[in-house]
């Protein structure tokens, strides 16, 4: 710097800050700020804001993220265009059948990758800023990523739903749409949590990418995203019925076809009986809760 830092106009000390510190107990944690505290909200929003600023200044991820599922929908739809009607359950064409699968798979992929930028932050040293700060909870890192991915997924979903409507798939009813969003949010939160858990557990981005790579497509093929359950051999039916993605895909698919849906509607015939929409939601929420709880010890680790 050309000039020296002289003790001029700006003092180092801020009386306001000092006052706030002593008022807030200056590190008194007899009542640790919890997940519902203003502190948690503040740090989460700040981290989320950073992610959106990054997106705004580097919009290519958004553009690619919207185009990719549309290409999937378009190409896969074309690929199976001449499949005899009725083969894919009640769907009138494959495009209509596929829309639900693409929506879920896109959201899932986004959430699965959520750990990558955090891993780069970690390798670069930026994550240390969060780790040395008195965060109300490190779940704020998870929730910030999840909010960001969820917002992206909703934009992607809107694009997919719109394109499928043009391809003749129709629209779910408004309440159904709200349920679609709820399903996606739950899935995204759960998968983001797992991805961040891996980020704290694995040695580096190479390992994280490897794990993402070996989970992504297999989970797609072992779900009902591309074909209905009764198309599959018995063992794969079992696997697909254990796959959380199936529990997100089938309700959305059902909502598309049945404006008269209810929570009791049966949406999936699994090898061990019929599963209703309500049960699917419960499974997803359970999955999400287990994922969040499971990563707690990983978040506490000291990883420098």
């Amino acid at each position, binding site marked *: 710097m050309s000039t*020296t830092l002289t003790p001029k106009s700006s003092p*180092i000390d801020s009386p306001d800050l000092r006052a*706030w510190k002593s008022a807030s107990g*200056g*590190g008194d*944690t007899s009542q640790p700020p919890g997940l519902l505290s203003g502190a948690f909200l503040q*740090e989460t929003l700040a981290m989320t804001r950073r992610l959106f600023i990054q997106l705004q200044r580097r919009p290519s991820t958004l553009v690619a993220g919207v185009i990719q599922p549309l290409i999937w929908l378009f190409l896969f739809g074309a690929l199976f265009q001449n499949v005899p009607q009725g083969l894919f359950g009640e769907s009138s064409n494959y495009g209509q059948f596929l829309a639900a699968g693409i929506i879920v798979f896109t959201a899932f992929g986004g959430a699965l990758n959520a750990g990558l930028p955090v891993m780069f932050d970690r390798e670069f*040293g930026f994550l*240390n800023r969060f780790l040395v*700060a008195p965060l109300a909870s490190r779940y704020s890192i998870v929730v910030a990523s999840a909010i960001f991915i969820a917002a992206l997924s909703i934009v992607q979903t809107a694009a997919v739903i719109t394109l499928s409507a043009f391809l003749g798939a129709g629209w779910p009813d408004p309440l159904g749409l709200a349920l679609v969003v709820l399903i996606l949010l739950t899935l995204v939160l759960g998968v983001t949590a797992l991805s961040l858990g891996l980020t704290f557990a694995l040695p580096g981005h190479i390992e994280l990418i490897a794990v993402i790579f070996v989970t992504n497509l297999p989970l797609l093929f072992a779900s009902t995203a591309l074909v209905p359950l009764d198309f599959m051999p018995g063992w794969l039916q079992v696997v697909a019925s254990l796959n959380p993605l199936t529990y997100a895909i089938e309700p959305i698919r059902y909502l598309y076809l049945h404006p008269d849906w209810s929570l009791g509607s049966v949406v999936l015939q699994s090898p061990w009986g019929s599963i209703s929409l309500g049960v699917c939601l419960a499974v997803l929420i359970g999955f999400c809760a287990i994922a969040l709880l499971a990563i707690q010890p990983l978040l506490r680790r000291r990883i420098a």
Partner: protein
Amino acid sequence: MPPAVLIEKLKKSYGSVEAVKDVSLTIQPGEIFGLLGPNGAGKTTTIRCLCTLASPDSGNIEINGTSVVDDPKVARQSLGYIAQEVALDPVLTGRELLQLQADIYHIPRKVSRDRIPQMIDLLELTDWADKKTGTYSGGLKKRLDLALGLLHQPEVLVLDEPTVGLDIETRSAVWQFLRQLKAAGTTVLITSHYLEEVDALADRVAIIDNGVVIAAGTPNELKDRIGGDRITLRIREFTPDDEARSAQEMLARLPFVQEVIINSAQGNSLNLVVEPQSDALLSVQQSLKEAGLSTFGISQSRPSLDDVYLAATGRTLMDAELAAVGTRNLKKERKEAMKGT
């Protein structure tokens, strides 16, 4: 009043590498404490344990009387940490990063609204605050890093080699800044492998080598402890070899002279270690005159911290640095570090 920082018998290994074997320090509130040591001595590892980034294998660390292991949040409240490598988000502006920092320390908006411009002004970032940090120069990045570490006005500021790789001007600015901080009552812990830096800044020093504290005290105490004064003299600006050697022989016979070294890198100047006595300088000059030798320049000084390091380890800091080059496997270290603890 408990010490600002207390480290007792800290031990920390990475795999088979004992990064810190036995480090104990006490830092009083309001002082600048220097942790001096060559590359790989264990300075960063000590600081990572202090800042709750790594967990010690054994030993006790307290900040203002609270254990950082049992109660990391309290420690995190009081600490400001400025890492050895500046890590900024290149896409965000300085001001945006400051706001992020304010929020993760839960500073209310009505306080940060004034505090952020204050820090921008204090570190003279005004012209750059609204530009992306990816466009900053190294010195600018360091200044923003300082602003970020200081934003929440920590009671204890920890700086890991804050001036390494900086130009001289920025370095002296950082020094001045740290003195200002001390004047404002902040406790400062700084690591360095620059002797002059620690000598100039620190109220107290610990010299650490191979994961062990080998000497601790005020710079003066340390120098007094090894004893002896240093006299540096030049017979001519460039003294011929034979003249230097005969002067060496002659001076070594003086009763109060312990050692005479010819420094050929400095035009054959002579470096004497002498028993501290007030007339040493005069006596040396006298003997030179009697031997018919002129004096181009002569000065007497106290031992430096490098002499302290030399006395404790048998090598100079510079030698230790050179020896450390090439022995560290950075890739492996990263791997080890990422395994977590």
